């Protein structure tokens, strides 16, 4: 297995001692204070003062009724969007110092979307390799890493299949592979098992939790499923844009 914390701390010369990992070593992954976010010119209050602490290596389930702001919170934590108000620290570093967010995200964050969102015209291997396109890696390293990841997810036989031709479960597995390929220390998943049958859902969950166990990565996972939430270290419930 090429993905333990040691190889992760000195791999391809780009992500050595990233801010996040420094923070992770101090034991903090996410600290959020009073996060607010509204849409449509303030008409829709998606987040209304969210406080949240997540320790490094912790796996957290985020649940709550539909529309309570789970996806919005996830997008703020992954720096996909900016809060209107509030403070956010990732690995002990204020989020404002982590912009532009893309290089930071490329090096530290893996996201599994509710819908797989693979690029349909690319093969599984090409989709999985996408996050590596922004890294300076040799072609060979890239290929080896993709092969290793597909092996881990038992997707080798699908490597050269176009994403559009995969089954629903295979797509979501490929999406997990894409999320893990950059060896992220922070994993976000938005109902990753929502669109697949329960057996495949269990496989996906096992892979995500296995990754965290193997590498010490932190996972925040949105789910409506009590059984899945039960497999996590802790469950946080939201309501109307706040922690309950």
């Amino acid at each position, binding site marked *: 297995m090429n993905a333990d914390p040691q190889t992760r701390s000195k791999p391809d010369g780009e992500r050595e001692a990233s801010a996040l990992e420094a923070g992770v070593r101090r034991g903090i992954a996410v600290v959020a204070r009073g996060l607010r976010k509204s849409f449509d010119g303030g008409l829709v209050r998606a987040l209304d003062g969210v406080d949240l602490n997540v320790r490094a290596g912790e796996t957290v389930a985020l649940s709550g009724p539909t529309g309570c702001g789970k996806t919005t919170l996830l997008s703020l934590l992954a720096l996909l969007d900016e809060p209107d108000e509030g403070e956010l620290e990732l690995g002990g570093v204020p989020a404002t110092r982590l912009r*532009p967010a893309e290089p930071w995200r490329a*090096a530290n964050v893996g996201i599994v*979307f509710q819908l797989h969102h693979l690029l349909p*015209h690319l093969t599984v291997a090409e989709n999985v390799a996408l996050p590596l396109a922004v890294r300076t890696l040799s072609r060979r390293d890239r290929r080896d890493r993709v092969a290793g990841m597909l092996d881990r997810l038992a997707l080798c036989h699908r490597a050269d299949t176009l994403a559009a031709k995969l089954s629903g479960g295979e797509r979501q597995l490929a999406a997990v592979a894409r999320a893990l390929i950059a060896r992220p220390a922070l994993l976000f998943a938005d109902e990753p098992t929502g669109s697949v049958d329960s057996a495949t859902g269990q496989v996906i969950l096992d892979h995500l939790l296995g990754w965290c166990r193997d590498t010490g990565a932190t996972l925040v996972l949105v789910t409506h499923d009590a059984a899945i939430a039960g497999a996590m270290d802790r469950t946080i419930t939201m309501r109307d844009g706040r922690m309950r």
Partner: protein
Amino acid sequence: MNAALRSLTRRPRRTILTVAGVAAAACAYMLLVGSAQGFLAQFRKLSTLFGADLVLLQAGSTSPWNSVLPVQPLAKLGEIGDIAGVSRLALGKARIVGAPFFLLFGLDPAEPLLGHLAIVRGRTLRPGADEMLLGSLAATRLGIGCGGEIDVRARRLRVVGVYRTGHRVVDAGGVLDLATTQRLFNLHDAVSLVFLDLAAPSAAGSAAARITARVPNVVVASAGEWVESYGQLVVVEDFARFLAVLALLIAVLGVANVLHVSVGERTQELAVLRAIGWRRQRVAAHILTECGLVTLLGAAVAVPMAELILLLIDSAWLGSLETAGFLPPHLSGGVILEGIVVACLAGLLGAAAPLLRAIRVRPADALRGA
């Protein structure tokens, strides 16, 4: 580059449609501008075709076809001196079988102009006979050669020879004896234009001044520029320019629309790329490369496409003798270059909107459904 290429090659149907859209716009530009320029060039070439030094036209006439010069004032030309040769030309248009708009040139076999005509088959005209020389283009298109007959205004004329000038409008018509033409078109002894050969071509200026002073109602122009004295040309030129602007507009809007749709379909895809760590610049470069490739490909396809359309119009199958005379059979290098430049310009302008759309994509949208 790789990603853009893959995006194009792996979605061949969309790529073909997009390229076709760009090509159609560039093709429209080349055809519109090419035809207008071709028409102008044909018209201008008439000037020097007859190889005379001076040309007389009726003052105030709007085209060679409605210039009428009565013969009496022309008698005064004898007093001018320095004139080595006088050639009268009577122009007529007739509907004949196979050509609804057939140009006829009436020339006197005894005057120099007919002698300049290169006869490629048969012989030249005999004075006063009901004979005709057919232009090479007309001969091919009408399928009539020496010995054939053509009815002009209910009079049967025998084709005795075929000429070629290299001028498509003239080669798409026929040459008659001057007297026959005047009879057929009720011109009495009037002619349309008179071409003068001077003993001393360098003295053309003073000769022109003397003619203007003595012969009433006549405009004297040097052979190189008599066509320019027609206002029609200015109208055509303005119209050509208007067409070019219109074509450019069509091209830009066409390309913009095609690229906009092709990028708009993929905002979700671009949001995902942003979410997995592609920076805005990278996404923009990806889209720009794609637009650039599509534009270049479209321009490349547009050239043979336009050539093919011209070929079809020039062929007996789709075209007529008139289009064959006035439309260029090929695009000039200049128009091709212009078309490619316009396509690239249109691509550049057209890519602006989709590019803006691409860089405005919010990575957070990747978390939301398509």
